[in-house]
């Protein structure tokens, strides 16, 4: 819902009369205009996928990664302003690293999400700092099992079974809700995520896109890594097939 701030939207340290901080809402718009990013928590792990919109034919495939490993056991998929996302990833890596140096064990996913959220929120408190123009989906596997968190530009962080941000988030959320996540393995989840991303991709508005996916699950030995190539190809093929079947109706 867009509404004009008129005067109350010039600074992130200004509330509007109806209690909103418009700058933060505008930051969220930056996320809404980016390619779709999805994360799902299956019974044995987490799968994340990104619709990487290709702005130029000269771009090298597999470059401009949108999913980053924060630590051995956790990864982050970024939507919105890519440069802002880089900062958040760097900060998360620093937090994970310093936690392990101090406490001698890998940072729990909940703790990492909390620290990232704190940092993102910090940047909404000062007039000389602008909010991050990116949303982040954080997936990890620690001693308490697989977990999925989403952190928004406002600094809000919640734990999810399935989350989506970006252009196609509404359609993606509808599709995710149809899935039986508690019975799904990550292997099956990879196929489903690919299908959803292909489905919500708007052929008319954006031409080409590249699908980037990662997982952290039992099969990956609880390490966050790119989905193996042959599974990725299998997922893409299944997604294209599903699209054709839909179009054929």
């Amino acid at each position: 819902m867009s509404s004009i701030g008129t005067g109350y939207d010039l600074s992130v340290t200004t509330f509007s009369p109806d209690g909103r901080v418009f700058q933060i809402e505008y930051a969220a718009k930056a996320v809404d205009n980016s390619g779709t990013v999805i994360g799902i928590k299956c019974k044995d792990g987490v799968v994340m996928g990104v619709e990487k919109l290709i702005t130029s034919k000269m771009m090298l495939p597999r470059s401009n990664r949108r999913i980053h490993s924060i630590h051995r056991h956790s990864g982050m998929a970024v939507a919105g302003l890519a440069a802002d996302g880089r900062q958040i990833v760097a900060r998360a890596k620093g937090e994970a690293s310093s936690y392990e140096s101090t406490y001698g064990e890998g940072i729990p996913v909940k703790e990492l999400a909390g620290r990232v959220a704190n940092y993102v929120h910090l940047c909404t408190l000062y007039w000389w700092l602008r909010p991050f123009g990116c949303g982040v989906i954080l997936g990890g596997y620690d001693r308490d099992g697989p977990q999925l968190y989403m952190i928004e530009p406002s600094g809000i962080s919640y734990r999810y079974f399935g989350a989506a941000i970006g252009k196609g988030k509404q359609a993606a959320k509808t599709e995710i809700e149809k899935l039986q996540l508690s019975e799904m393995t990550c292997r099956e989840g990879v196929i489903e995520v690919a299908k959803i991303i292909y489905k919500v991709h708007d052929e008319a508005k954006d031409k080409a896109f590249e699908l980037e996916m990662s997982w952290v699950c039992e099969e990956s030995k609880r390490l966050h890594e790119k989905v193996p190539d042959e599974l990725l190809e299998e997922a893409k093929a299944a997604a294209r097939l599903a699209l054709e079947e839909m179009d054929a109706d």
Partner: protein
Amino acid sequence: MDSLNLDEPHSMGTTIIGVTYDGGVVLGADSRTSTGVYVANRASDKITQLTDNVYVCRSGSAADSQIVSDYVRYFLHQHTIQLGQPATVKVAANLVRLLSYNNKNMLQTGLIVGGWDKYEGGKIYGIPLGGTILEQPFAIGGSGSSYLYGFFDQAWKEGMTKEEAESLMVKAVSLAIARDGASGGVVRTVTINADGVTRNFYPGDTLPLWHEEIPAQNSLLDILSAPSPEPMSM
């Protein structure tokens, strides 16, 4: 007496031991704190609580080991609040070793961290003088431990019951007390498992007598319980 220098730093000559058993850990120690040859405290408690589920055995300088324990207890408390659940034994041990290692030039304390957490069960971590951390099925430390290496090589076995572990512990500490002048007093043990923490106390006269040891006679305690002398009449 020039050997009785009461300004010497308090040191815990000590025998400290930590042992894992099937389901938890048992920590044990003697109770002698010495200032040179003077026994400053003959009933000290060298097994200190860090959290509900993690305890540490202290040896070496009494002051140094106490300050390290205090700092770690403070950090662990904050960590527990942040995490929302009890800290693991590994985290406690890591915090101890960071302090020991980073201040190695100033500290002289050997520590044995032991406890139980829901992820790893019972664990023992030995953290000797320089700040090394080593996870072990059992650990011994302090001046009295020199006399126990051979004993444990022979007597230790994997998968003991709680009772076996505790009696092994008491036997070991009392053997060390028999040979090490800087260890003595009573034997204290702390058992930690899924059900919680149990403290036990074995006074000197309940300990077995070893080779060439004579039963306590005319001990200080008898003198204390003797009636006061009658005033002399002039």
